[in-house]
């Protein structure tokens, strides 16, 4: 029998994805930058003191952009840039909440539905199907007319309504991977099923998909919040700022900057969130 010397069984060294990193798409940086900016605004907004009554100054009514007011002022002379920053409060933490609920709930339900053969899995699968039949926006508007809820309740609802989508993705992954040799090998090596499911399948395999879905959920909450505030009956009410009720000023027919800036922020943020989620998912998938 052969000797103990290790033979030439090494392949040329390479780092994972080194090729892909060089061709990193500009889109990832661009969308990532915008998402980071929105998140930064959302984080610092609560730290900035804002008194909507004191902000009014009819001397500055509809002033254009200047050094003292970077994005100009609205019909009541309030600084638009500051209102944009404060406006993130309306969706930022609700968005984070919805994202967390959807991702954790979806991953957990997907894992249960895919792994458990018994009545638990059956029940979860049934519940998912039921939730999936609810049209999201209609349900949320209905909720608003019945309960007149706060943004956090709306966000929670949105998060729950996204659970079936995410659960279906995770469940498919769990089911296809369950018969993979390495999952079997991990069982034989004595790893706990919860560890295999949670770490090897959900974390390592589903992470890019979950990031993409999380971005979708966040952008959905942004969309719902701005839409409700725009329509005016629900959501953030004047004089408190929301990107949505800022855009609504276009109905008063006053000026250009007061509605243009928030409108651009809404469109760009949602587009960037979706693009960022896709870019991250694609990059992580290309690396494997």
């Amino acid at each position, binding site marked *: *029998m*052969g*000797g*103990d*010397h*290790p*033979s030439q*069984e*090494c*392949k040329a*060294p*390479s780092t*994972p994805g080194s090729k892909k990193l060089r061709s990193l798409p500009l889109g990832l940086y661009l969308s990532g930058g915008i998402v980071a900016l929105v998140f930064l605004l959302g984080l610092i907004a609560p730290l900035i003191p804002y008194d909507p009554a004191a902000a009014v100054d009819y001397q500055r009514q509809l002033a254009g952009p200047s050094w003292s007011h970077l994005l100009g002022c609205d019909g009541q002379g309030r600084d638009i840039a500051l209102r944009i920053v404060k406006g993130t409060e309306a969706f930022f933490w609700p968005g984070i909440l919805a994202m967390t609920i959807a991702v954790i709930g979806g991953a957990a339900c997907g894992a249960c539905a895919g792994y458990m*053969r*018994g009545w638990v899995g059956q029940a979860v699968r049934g519940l998912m199907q039921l939730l999936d039949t609810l049209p999201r926006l209609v349900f949320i508007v209905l909720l608003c007319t019945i309960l007149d809820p706060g943004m956090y309740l709306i966000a929670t609802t949105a998060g729950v309504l996204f659970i079936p989508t995410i659960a279906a993705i995770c469940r498919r992954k769990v089911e296809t991977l369950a018969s*993979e*040799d*390495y999952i*079997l*090998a*991990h*069982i*034989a*090596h*004595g*790893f706990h*099923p919860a560890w295999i499911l949670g770490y*090897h399948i959900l974390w*390592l*395999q589903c992470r890019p998909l979950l990031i993409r879905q999380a971005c979708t959920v966040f952008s959905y909450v942004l969309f719902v919040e701005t839409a409700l505030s725009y329509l005016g009956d629900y959501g953030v009410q004047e004089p408190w700022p929301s990107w949505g009720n800022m855009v609504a000023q276009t109905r008063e027919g006053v000026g250009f900057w007061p509605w243009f800036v928030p409108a651009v922020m809404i469109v760009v943020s949602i587009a960037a969130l979706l693009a960022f989620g896709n870019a991250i998912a694609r990059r992580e998938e290309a690396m*494997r």
Partner: protein
Amino acid sequence: MRPLLRVRDLTVVFDTAEGQRKVVDGVSFAVGMGETLGILGESGSGKTISSSAVLGLIDDTPGVCGGEIVFTQGDHEISLLEGLDTCVTQRPDGLYVKDNRRWMQHVRRVMTPIWGCGMTAVFQNPRQCLDPLERIGAQVEESVGLAAPHLTAAERMQAALDWLQKVQMRDPLRVYRSYPHELSGGMCQRAMIAIALARHPALLIADEPTTGLDTTVRAEIVALFHSLIQESQASMIYISHDIREVLYLASRVIVMRSGRVLEEATSEDLLLGRGTRHPYTATLLHAADLPTGQVSETV
């Protein structure tokens, strides 16, 4: 020798297009403490299915339908197939019907304390058996961490590197940082061996661990098994269709064909041609060009 594992009359049945088929038909063998048992047989003879049945890894229906498997853990003898008869019924026409869900729950309950530290396995296709998205180092560390949960991160890393060294990786640090797809099959198999042995199993089941590897690498892997098993004093079931590998590693050999054990003999007897051989075993020995015939005439 005190047996670590006793298998008696193991029967495994699968549903196929042509009805039910007994893939393993009344297989019996035993593995003593610190002993290496070889299972020899052509492909399709039921070696993998028998060992998977012992490991509790068969989830196709009806699967294990009869027999007895007793595993000794510490001072306890655990009967792995206890309660099987309550899950399986044989209909008058001979077909087996099994409550598979209940059986799988039972298997999981019985096997959970055994998997890993009691018995563990190294399989045929090392690359597919490693998590493709995790670095080798992290995978070995997982195993080390399960065997010794109190270790700090730095100690775990050191232990993982030690294991990579023990399985004779040329550059442990580089392997530690590599993903499975960056390593050759032989190196993946070494990593698998490290992961399996890091749990200090009482019984290692190696199912054709050298199939698909280059000849030189095969010889190295076999030598590695030889030294590591001797060092750890674990028992091993070494499954192969290569009679040379089996005779080199195992002290006792069973020969399987079509789901049955044809013959059981010590390696020494086989090598020296003592006793009477089953014609199939004689063919295998002859094909491997081992000097059996002449010896058997003189003994």
